[in-house]
């Protein structure tokens, strides 16, 4: 899929995301337990782990939804993620796709993208803002990319599940983040769509950093370069797919008790 991406190249060297010793507990239950993780610029990282391993919670911490009890979370050069609000984190360049597709059901597809699109997002300016033709073109390009070019005026709530998934990915792209967090992006997609998604992610890698959480191992294998395995809130293995697959602890976690 070599469509013109509506995204600028974000060249950056070194580490984009740096998590160190993060712990989160809910009523005494440790959802994350001393978790450390580093994502390099341009990297595509897959995170796997059984249900309840803490994958979504990790994303919550990165995006500011959940505050960690302990540990540091840094983004880019200096941004301390534990102090910024959700909106500030998003503006700093972290985009997130939820596990459950969340789009703005009452708005049209076009409007969904318009809202997500990178722009001045303060209340005052949105009151007066008008779409420039260049912004129009960028939305059009995104629409083409996600295959909804002809459905721009459709109400998003009426889209099929797969279309909603794509719309959400489109919104993420329109946001032009440096780091994309994708929570189970292909759940509910057909094989063909899954393939397209894989292509898209691979084409984004390099210019963007991606963290993909998925249960679909086939999908992981097609895109994986480096894989992190979470279990009970901590990293139990990290490395390329082969190495991880043969790690005895991973096998134990996935196969037996």
């Amino acid at each position, binding site marked *: 899929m070599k469509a013109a991406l509506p995204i600028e190249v974000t060249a950056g060297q070194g580490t984009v995301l740096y998590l160190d010793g993060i712990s989160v507990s809910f009523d005494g239950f440790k959802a994350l337990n001393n978790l450390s993780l580093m994502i390099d610029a341009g990297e595509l990282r897959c995170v796997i782990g059984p249900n309840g391993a803490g994958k979504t919670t990790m994303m919550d911490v990165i995006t500011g939804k959940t505050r960690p009890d302990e540990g540091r979370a840094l983004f880019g050069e200096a941004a301390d993620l534990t102090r910024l609000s959700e909106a500030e984190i998003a503006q700093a360049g972290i985009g997130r796709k939820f596990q459950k597709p969340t789009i*703005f059901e009452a708005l049209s597809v076009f409007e969904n993208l*318009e*809202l997500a699109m990178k722009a001045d*997002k303060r209340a005052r300016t949105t*009151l007066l803002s008008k779409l420039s033709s260049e912004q129009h073109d960028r939305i059009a390009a995104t629409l083409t990319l996600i295959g909804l070019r002809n459905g721009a005026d459709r109400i998003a709530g009426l889209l099929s599940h797969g279309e909603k998934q794509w719309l959400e990915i489109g919104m993420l792209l329109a946001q032009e983040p440096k780091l994309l967090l994708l929570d189970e992006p292909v759940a509910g997609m057909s094989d063909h769509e899954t393939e397209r998604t894989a292509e898209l992610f691979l084409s984004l890698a390099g210019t963007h950093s991606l963290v993909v959480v998925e249960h679909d191992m086939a999908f992981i294998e097609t895109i994986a370069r480096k894989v992190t395995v979470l279990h009970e809130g901590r990293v139990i293995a990290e490395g390329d797919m082969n190495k991880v697959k043969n790690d005895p602890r991973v096998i134990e976690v996935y196969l037996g008790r």
Partner: protein
Amino acid sequence: MSALTLNQGQTPVNGLNRGPSLFWRLYGVKGWLAIGIGALIAFVVFPVLNLLVPPTSALHISAFWVTLIGKIMCYAIVALALDLVWGYAGILSLGHGLFFALGGYAMGMYLMRQIGREGQYQADLPDFMVFLDWKELPWHWSMSDQFWWAAVLVVLVPGVLAFVFGYFAFRSRVKGVYFSIITQALTFAAMLLFFRNNTGFGGNNGFTDFKRILGFSITAPETRMALFVITALTLIGTFLAARWIVTSKFGRVLEAIRDAEARVMFCGYNTMHFKLAIFTFSAVLCGIAGALYVPQVGIINPSEMSPANSIEMAIWVAVGGRGTLAGAILGAGLVNGAKSFFTVAFPEYWLFALGAIFICVTLFMPRGVMGLLKR
């Protein structure tokens, strides 16, 4: 009002085509036509039929109707205000009766001072203060004899209260039913406060027996008509302003907040600013509506702040159709028209009717009358 025929116009952002000019963004031809007709009725037909046509004529519109329609237009402004926060941003405030009453009280203070020495006790102070044996005006009444100051208070008091309250509530992410409950508690607390004589707002009885506004006799037909026209003007202004807001990107962010607030935040919008802005704006609109209401009906008292009133406001919006501005006006008109009819014809059945409206609208007409009309 001719809100019945009002149309929502074309969808503003028209797919991949460029957006229309501001004028056509607000309404299409039909919509503007309807507004024009409404304005014509309010600014020409009513004044002529009320003031120039003699009372003996069949065409004459009596003071009763002028007051009733004027009152309903005030309610319609409230409905628009509530629709902005509830219909668009999904925040059900049960405190709008409070903002309305505060605007009313701010205007009422000025009207009380305008009575001058014509009260029952013929004193400089308002009657209720003489009755309480007060010797001088309390601090919060200073400058209340100035109209400009009353106008400032009408905007400022509800605005500041809503801003401060909203700031704390939205900052700590109070939402949904929680928000409704605490706004209701706020209204309730304010009502108790205003019921006290010592608060200095006339206790139970509130303010009434007004004589003049800006020096004009408040009962004179010309004054009433002037108030009517100003109210209509405010209503149309509010309507257009609200339409401008909801067709802007700001309005779309509000709708997005209603549907998926977390997503909006992760898109990089500070949702609190949006909610706070629209809540405060809405409160100010209510204050203005209250200020227009009081001189027309001639009374304001704490029962205006009772939780029941605020909930009733929500039903105006629900009846008309949440998230459509014309619906809000329509709903305010329908419910209050029915109320005026019932309380005269079958007073004991009004609560049954109102209760039934609440139940039926939520069960069977989630999109209100506008939803039915659109189908």
